[in-house]
């Protein structure tokens, strides 16, 4: 019932998602795969998208919401252009990951989970990337940077921003 009250626009993004759902609706337990795709399309999973998924799959919205909030990977808030993930896993911890996090929070002026005012960086943390040999490690989008220290980390982010603005 409730999903009807939410207005779902008819645009290319929703059409793409709808096609994906139709192609996968016969596979058992498609919800997580559908949400993966939805996040890829929209960048995050706002209520509106969750309602759409629930309606198309014929499941209660509570179930979709339950899954979205359970998994770290799914986001309900929009993020900046680039996501900076600091690993706080055990191997990175002993190599001083928390110092790096502290330095970045200060440098970017945001806390974990926050996004810079210009929507350029979102700061996030993770438990382990499986790149522990390079500890301490961060990922910026899909790129891994290892053997960091606070200065180096700040420099990397500065360089990335410069590279982007020059482009």
């Amino acid at each position: 019932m409730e999903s009807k009250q939410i207005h779902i626009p008819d645009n290319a993004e929703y059409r793409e998602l709808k096609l994906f759902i139709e192609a996968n609706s016969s596979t058992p337990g498609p919800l997580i795969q559908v949400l993966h795709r939805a996040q890829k399309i929209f960048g995050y999973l706002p209520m509106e998208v969750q309602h759409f998924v629930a309606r198309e799959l014929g499941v209660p919205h509570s179930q979709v919401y339950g899954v979205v909030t359970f998994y770290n990977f799914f986001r309900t808030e929009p993020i900046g252009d680039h996501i900076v993930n600091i690993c706080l896993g055990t191997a990175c911890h002993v190599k001083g990951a928390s110092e790096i996090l502290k330095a970045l929070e200060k440098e970017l002026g945001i806390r974990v989970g926050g996004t810079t005012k210009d929507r350029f960086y979102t700061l996030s943390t993770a438990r382990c990337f499986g790149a522990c040999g390079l500890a301490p490690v961060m990922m910026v989008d899909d790129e891994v940077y290892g053997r960091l220290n606070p200065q180096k980390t700040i420099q990397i982010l500065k360089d990335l921003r410069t590279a982007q603005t020059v482009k």
Partner: protein
Amino acid sequence: MSIYRTHILVPIDEGTVQAGVFEVKRTLEREIRERGLEGEVRVLETGTVGIVGKGVLLAVYPDRIYYSGMRPSDVALLVEEHLLKGRVPSSLKHAPLDLQDGAKVLHRTGLTLPQKRVVLDKAWKVAPDDMREVLASGGYAGLERIVADRMTPEAVIDEVKKSGLRGRGGAGFPTGLKWELTRNSPGGRKYIICNADEGEPGTFKDRLILEGDPHRIVEAMTIAGYAMGATKGYVYIRGEYALSIERMQKAIDQAREYGLLGPDVLEHGFAFDLEIKKGAGAYICGDETALLESLEGKRGNPRIKPPYPVAHGLWQEPTSVNNVETLANVPGIIARGAGWFRTMGTEKSSGTKVFTILGHVEHPGLVEVEMGTPLRELVFSYGGGVSGGRKFKAALLGGASGVFLPEGLLDVRMDFESLKENKAVLGSGAVLVMDEDASIVDMLFSILKFFAHESCGRCAPCRIGTRQLLNLAWKLRRGKGRETDLDTMLRLAELMCGTALCPLGQSVIMPVRSAIEYFRGEFEACVKKTTEEARV
């Protein structure tokens, strides 16, 4: 294998990528083309060698020389001297390479000490996506033996049972028995699932197996499917492991093309197919029952056991969940026999084990050695000892739900029994070394934070217990602890061990007890600070 006189292997992993391996590879290929060597020298991308932090690596076969720290500007010299003139240029950092059976201690890299590579045998020697090479180097030999010798499913299970193979995912459950239970459970469809969620912090062995030798897992799962009577398998891979997912998908596609997967595997009248499912980042989904829930598209809440997955697993059908490394052992066992497998390791823990050696060591990286190798050897020989010449304080074995071991226990052997005798676990095979300056209190705090975050919240002991433990550790760390806090922590962890619904909550006791038992002094110092301050 081919008419090329020389192969240059280019190990691709996160470390080499960061060091610019692709640039080096492009330069190398261009140089080889320009010198007209294309027909003679072949450049191959492989998985990791397990040597971390030595920059871009190139291994030249059959000469068995490896170069480290390669830059694009070094390439011309290498081609000119080594490939054309046949001599190794001394100005480049190089060393003879022999991971499998070489007795020499090579280079300064601890990780080139002789290892026993079984599951990682091909990971860096063979291009994972070149089917001809995979087959030529013994890939799918296990499956072939089943067909050639007309092995029955029972015979396959028997071979695995005789090998003594035990689960590498943490619990050490006998693999053959798990398969037999699944086979004998009544049910329409059966499933084999490869657990590649690898969530234990400080562990990346499964990733390297998947990236370096995905066909080994395809083969193993096909064998498992045949043995158990399963026609479908799922590989549940951590979402962050993009390269693993890509390589695994390619291997599955290739296997289908070659008739190694599909409706009639090797024209042997047996149907089997594989599908990849991506995890969405929840530590608890590494637990087999939570993984099943997640596979069904739900929240990854663990199930209450019994019933066990072998009877009621995916969609309530009989299911065997096996770790990547466990499965990676199977093709060798079938191809070469249980007897061969038993020549490695100890009586009750046969075979090899992959370890990731990390933290304050000279040479972090991964090694594969026989079960029963002393911890001391891992840390001081393979790991090259504590970095910066500092003193050893502790090793955290098995990730967050692992155990701290003090210096006095460095001689413990790394196999299921010996570790159990010392109230420790093999776990995921992570060995995190901490030097004299590292703080155990701080580390335990970080681990408890991890648990509090990853607790799924379904049962009260774990949901509340992890939070309470975190608070107590926080107080201690801040120097606000009380004398009784240590015992409260121990009691809480014990309570959780006895009452939590799933192994996540039950295993919090491992790091808590070992930290307080072996390093009580450090915790008491935190308490003392408080009492003194209180007096002032």
